[in-house]
């Protein structure tokens, strides 16, 4: 089937999608967007988190056909600078700077989820950060540096507005 979807601001028509495929598979294998990760493919780890019509969702739990006519934003689409530029969203910068990235496999999902948290709540407390990120597993960092990253990103976004 063909799926018409807006991904990272660009209207796309994706052909030859099999009905059983997930949004995650379509993004990764048919659209050249492997940033969303395939760590569990059953909605437990959050590594595939994307915005679907502005709301974070596990792309592995969404059938490709369900995104017909909708808007998807992935980790690749968070940086809003000019194409090819090295501009990153403050959340991405903060993750890289604080040591919140080790193997980095959980990172794209955590960044989308943290991005959403700060959009909704520009000054989250630690308890609010923990609650917001409770669905994103990380096996490397013990989460301490991830808390640092979210605090830093929130500060920077607040300072910039």
């Amino acid at each position, binding site marked *: 089937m063909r799926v018409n979807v807006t991904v990272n601001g660009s209207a796309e028509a994706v052909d030859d999608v099999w009905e059983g495929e997930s949004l995650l598979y379509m993004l990764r294998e048919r659209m050249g967007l492997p*940033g969303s990760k395939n760590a569990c493919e059953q909605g*437990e780890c959050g590594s595939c988190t994307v915005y679907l019509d502005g709301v974070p969702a596990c792309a592995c739990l969404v059938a490709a056909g369900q995104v017909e006519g909708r808007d998807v934003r992935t980790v690749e689409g968070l940086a809003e600078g000019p194409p090819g530029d090295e501009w*990153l969203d403050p959340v991405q910068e903060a993750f*890289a700077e604080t040591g919140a990235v080790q*193997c980095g*496999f959980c990172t794209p999902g955590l960044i989308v989820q943290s991005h959403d948290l700060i959009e909704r709540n520009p000054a989250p407390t630690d308890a609010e950060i923990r609650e917001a990120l409770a669905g994103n597993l990380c096996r*490397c960092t013990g989460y301490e540096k991830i*808390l640092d990253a979210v605090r830093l990103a929130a500060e920077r976004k607040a300072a910039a507005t």
Partner: protein
Amino acid sequence: MASPVRSPGQVAAPGQGGVGDSPLRPDGTLKVAGEFAYASDLWMDGMLWGATLRSPHPRALITSIDVGPALAVPGVRAVLTHEDVPGRKTFGIDRTEDQPVLAVDQVRHEGEPVALVAADHPETARRAMELIAVGYEVLAPITDPRAVLADPEGLKVQERGGITRHQPVRVGDVAAARAAADVVVSGEYEVGIQDQAFLGPESGLAVPAEDGGLDLYVSTQWIHNDLKQIAPCLGLAEDQIHMTLAGVGGAFGGREDLSMQIHAGMLALHTGRPVKMSYNRYESFFGHVHRHPAQMRYEYGATADGKLLYADVEIVLDGGAYTSSTMNVTGNAASLGVGPYEIPNIKIDAYGVYTNNPPCGAMRGFGAVQACFAYESMMDRLAAACGLDPVEIRRRNAVTQGSRLATGQVIDSPAPLAEMLTRLEAMPLPPPLDPSDLRNLPGGVAQTTHGEGVVRGVGYGVGIKNICFSEGFDDYSTARVRLEVIGGEATALVHTAAAEVGQGLVTVKAQIARTELGVQRVTIAPADDRVGDAGSSSASRQSYMTGGAVKAACEAVRAELLALAARRLGGRWAAADLAVVGGKIVSRADGVLGTIEEVLGDEVVEETREYHHRPTTALDPVTGQGSSHTQLALCVHRAVVDVDVDLGLVKVVEMAAVQDVGKIINRTGVEGQIHGGSAQGLGLAVMEEIVVSDGLVRNPSFTDYLIPTILDMPPMRLDILENPDPAAPYGLRGAGEPPTLSSTPAIVAAIRDATGKALNRVPVRPEHIVRGAPWTA
């Protein structure tokens, strides 16, 4: 040869930062942008997808395999069985070679690979796989490791069967010490099977090369050791295979054994097409070895004032059906079986055995984790029996520099355990919980309590881990460093085969190059087999070994640069009188003579060096004596918990840790290792276990195998000490594993403190806390 559209590239290390700084990770920007090429992201035009049919039985004879129905599925390009293995039919790490590439006439554990499919679409491959008809004659699995110990000849799961290794340790006279002891305590302990649960699944891409060989892009921990195992099974020479490390999504020991490497290679050679294999989470639970479960019996005797007189210890590790690294895990359990304490009389018997339970091998801590839970539980038990404080009894028996381990090995670098405990004890304790915010309580917003029945506990744990490979293994790493002027700036290219698995080795390599060469711009080449062996990213060894190799190669490059400077600067200065400082060539007498760029011109300086650590010795097979370890590292933990004693729910409130890392090469990196290692120890303490019954895994998913979330992991306090080890590069001490040891017993001790229960098994479950379960006696 076409290279994959998505594949690992070299990374430029941004910014400044030498040894001791915390510069940005060279791969960090790619990782946060979603552009880093992990093994499961690899993609190539015309590639096929591989799938693996696995045994549903822990033990069965194979009576028939019919691949016909699978081959008939449109889109299927190959269906292969053991008959199609081009070379040797078995492989194994550590030259064990007892694991079939694909099962031949028998399966020996659930999930053992039986057949392979390659197809145009992964779902086609999976459906075809289900059509392969395998006839099994199911046998009763051998699942009790102690039964195997009692009858090793009668209960063989394979030819080698029975006992994998028995390593005794004998020091002094335990019987005499027992007669003299004022206090005797004993306990039986059990550790469940822990999974590495790295987030990036086993994945890779095999590409047939025009010369009949193979290009392999795989996430692994040890490229050269993979090659040694892969090549003979594929019937190829090692130099016919080129391996490049694909992005690794965590490892923790679970990628030390092969997973899909040979399988993807077989499918690629057979079809002549690139083949990608990528496990899903369910398959990953069967696709790699786990941490050995352990059954342990300990008896300690001491004087009335708590000075240890003897230890009598039996450790049984269940390695599953194949050898994997069970030999070395057993060796570690034996040599570190009583931890960092001075004990004059010791009898340890550590056993690894074969069963039809899930296969076990390397996981962070490697045999030392299991023993640590038992010996630390014993120290608490002894403290209670002597009426002493748990910290005080540890201090009274603590090793220090000059002490002997159970193996007789003298600790010849700083080991300030007593001081570490004192510093740990002095750290402030967290305030009492605020029950007005449910998120602070055990059970959280599930509203299982509003503070009633919640009791706070505090516990301590100590651990000692060997760093680098032990028992006489010639452990080394290789680095190639190239210095040239690119775009007007001196640039160092660092090339090693060492696996970056997330730990930050790429950052450390760039830091060392900056410090040794005085350049700012460093590029890290992809890890591959076009440079010599780097050894494994395990045993907390890469900063030490590959760090040492990069340092040595940089020193050689620097010497050559200075010789070049001596020649080019008109012979007025000898190379020995010159140095590189801040990107400049300087003479001791005359100051700055020029920049590196001016001296180099268009000259390229390249050097390759191997770094070997000092030799170690084997353990005596009868007495367990020998200087078997390269380096020893200590970490101590304090855990504070709140326990709902009515419901058995535990909230870990805080963990504090003191670790001696010799020299902090990268503070952010070291802190990340201690945080992450402590989190995995927390998992083992209260959450993580692969539950097995009748040889079958009951919880192969992240729905049922729980790893700590950000809600489970508490804030940490760290105190990182730098007492250098003179034998190691920069004095550093490997840091990745030690925190995984001591965090588990500290948390369990804290739960015991809150509940008064014995808790002799990890993970501790609610029923162990609230009921008279066997492990609470």
